[in-house]
C-alpha cells in the first residue's frame, strides 16, 4: 500500500464516519467546557472538618431532619444551662414524663444525683448525633453529649483532658419534641404471659436504656411445692433470646418461690438499642418443681444433686417479649 492509497483510505474513513466523529467531538467539547466552568466557579472557602453534629456516627447516611436540628440544639443548651445554674427542678421538668418516671422514679433528688455525677461543676459541652432508631412508629434521635471543663479558658493548665458523657434522646411526642437523658431511651408495656400448672410468669414491662434492657417480671407459684427458677446450679437459667443469639442476665439472684408465693423481680440484659436486633423472648431454661429443697448455700453437692434428681418436674418456659 503506497501513501496515496493510505491517504485515500483515511479520507474515505472520515467521509464515511463524518457524523459520528462530529458527535464525539461535540460531546468531548461539552465535557471539556463543563469541567472548565466547574473548576473556575468561585467557591466559598470554608474549613474542612469531620465534625457533623447531626450526622449519626453509627450510620453516616442517617441525619437528623433539618427542621429538628435547631430545636434540639436549643433544648440541649437550655438543659445544660439549667444544670450549670443548679436549677435542677427546671432541668428535670424538661424531661419526658416517661424518663422522669422510669429513669428517676419521679424524684428530682435522683435526677440531681445523676446530674452531679456528670457535671459536678459547671461544664461546657459538645454534641454528636450517635444513632437514629425506630420504636413504635416513632423515630428516636440519640445524641452523645460530652461535658468538659472550659478547656479554652485553662489551656489544660494543672489538669488533664477528660470528659463525662451521656446519651440524650429526642423524639416527636404529642406536645412537641420530647427529651430523655441518663441513657434512658424508652419504656414499653409488654404484658406477656407464659403459664402451666406449677408456675405463671408475667413479663410486665421493659425499660430500654442505650446499652441495657431491663424487664420487670412477676412469678407466681401455683403449686404447693417449692419452685426454683434460678439458683446458679445450671447454665443460662435466665436468658434473653435475640434473632441469632442469646444474652445472659447480668447479676441474677436466686429465684426460689415458696408454695403459692409470688414475687416481682427485674432482669437486666446487655443489649445496645441500635444493634439492629429485636429482642424475641425471655427464656427460663431450668425451672424445677422440688418436693424437697434445702437451698444451695452450705449444702453439699450430693444433697443438691439428689434433690434435683428427685424433682417433681423440670421444664423451661419462654415468654414472648416482641413489641
Amino acid at each position, binding site marked *: 500500500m503506497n501513501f496515496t492509497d493510505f491517504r485515500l483510505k483515511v479520507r474515505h474513513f472520515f467521509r464515511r464516519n463524518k457524523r459520528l466523529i462530529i458527535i464525539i467531538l461535540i460531546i468531548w*467539547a461539552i465535557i471539556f467546557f463543563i469541567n472548565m466552568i466547574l473548576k473556575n*466557579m*468561585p467557591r466559598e*472557602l470554608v474549613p474542612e472538618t469531620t465534625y457533623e453534629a447531626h450526622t449519626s456516627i453509627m450510620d453516616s447516611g442517617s441525619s437528623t431532619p433539618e427542621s429538628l436540628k435547631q430545636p434540639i440544639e436549643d433544648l440541649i443548651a437550655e438543659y445544660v444551662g439549667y444544670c450549670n445554674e443548679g436549677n435542677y427542678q427546671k432541668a428535670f421538668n424538661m424531661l419526658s414524663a416517661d424518663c422522669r418516671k422510669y429513669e428517676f422514679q419521679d424524684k428530682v433528688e435522683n435526677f440531681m444525683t445523676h446530674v452531679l455525677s456528670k457535671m459536678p461543676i459547671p461544664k461546657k459541652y459538645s454534641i*454528636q448525633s450517635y444513632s437514629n432508631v425506630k420504636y413504635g412508629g416513632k423515630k428516636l434521635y440519640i445524641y452523645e453529649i460530652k461535658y468538659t471543663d472550659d478547656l479554652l*479558658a485553662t*489551656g489544660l493548665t494543672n489538669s488533664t483532658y477528660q470528659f463525662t458523657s451521656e446519651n440524650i434522646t429526642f423524639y416527636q411526642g404529642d406536645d412537641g419534641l420530647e427529651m430523655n437523658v441518663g441513657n434512658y431511651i424508652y419504656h414499653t408495656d409488654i404484658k406477656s404471659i407464659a403459664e402451666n400448672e406449677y408456675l405463671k410468669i408475667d413479663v410486665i414491662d421493659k425499660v430500654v436504656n442505650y446499652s441495657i434492657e431491663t424487664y420487670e417480671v412477676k412469678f407466681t407459684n401455683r403449686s404447693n411445692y417449692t419452685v426454683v427458677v434460678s439458683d446458679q446450679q445450671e447454665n443460662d437459667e435466665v436468658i434473653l433470646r435475640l434473632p441469632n443469639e442469646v444474652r445472659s442476665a447480668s447479676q441474677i439472684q436466686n429465684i426460689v418461690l415458696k408454695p403459692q408465693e409470688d414475687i416481682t423481680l427485674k432482669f437486666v440484659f446487655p443489649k445496645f438499642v441500635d444493634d439492629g436486633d429485636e429482642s424475641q423472648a425471655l427464656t427460663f431454661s431450668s425451672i424445677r418443681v422440688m418436693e424437697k429443697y434445702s437451698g444451695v448455700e452450705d449444702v453439699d453437692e450430693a444433697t443438691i444433686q439428689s434433690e434435683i434428681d428427685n424433682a417433681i418436674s423440670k421444664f423451661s418456659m419462654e415468654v414472648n417479649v416482641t413489641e
Partner: protein
Amino acid sequence: MKVKKDNKLIIFGIIVVIILAIIAFIVSKPKNKIDYDKMTDEEISVAIQEDLENKEKEELSKMGERDRMEYYVSEFVDEIENENYEEAYSMLYDDFKKNYFPTLDQFEEYAKTKFPRMFALEHTNIERNGNTYVLWVTLGDLLGSKDSAVEMNFVIQENDLNDFVMSFTVK
C-alpha cells in the same frame, strides 16, 4: 430546504458548545486585577495584605483539620519567635487571658522566660471536642539540650478559616 434530523442535532450540539465556551471564558477570566499604579502606598499595602490573607485562606481551605490546627499553633509560635508578642497575645482566648495574662506585659514576660528562643515543634496527638481541638505538643529548644523539651497542650477553637482563638498549658 429540509434539514435532516441528524444535522439538527449536530447544529444544536455546536450551539451548546459555543454557549459553554463563552461561559467558561467568562468564569476563567482573572478577577479585577489590582491596578497598583493608581493607588497610594497605604492602599497598596492594604491590598497586598488582603491578597496574602486570601491566599492563606485558600491554602487553609485545602488542608485537613489536623494540618490546619498544627498550622495555627505554628503561627502562634512564629509570632513569639519573632517577638511579635502583641500578635501572639491577640490569638489567645479572652477568658484564658483573664485567668493567666491579664496584661500584654505579663504575657510578654512569660513568653520571654518560658518559651525557647528557637522552637522545634512535635505534634504528638490531637482530639476534637465539638469545634474545639486539643493538641498535644512537644516543644523543643533548638538552642538548648534534648532534656529541655517540654510537653504541653494547645486548645484551639476555630470559628472560620484563619479565624481562631487558643490557649495553652501554662507551666
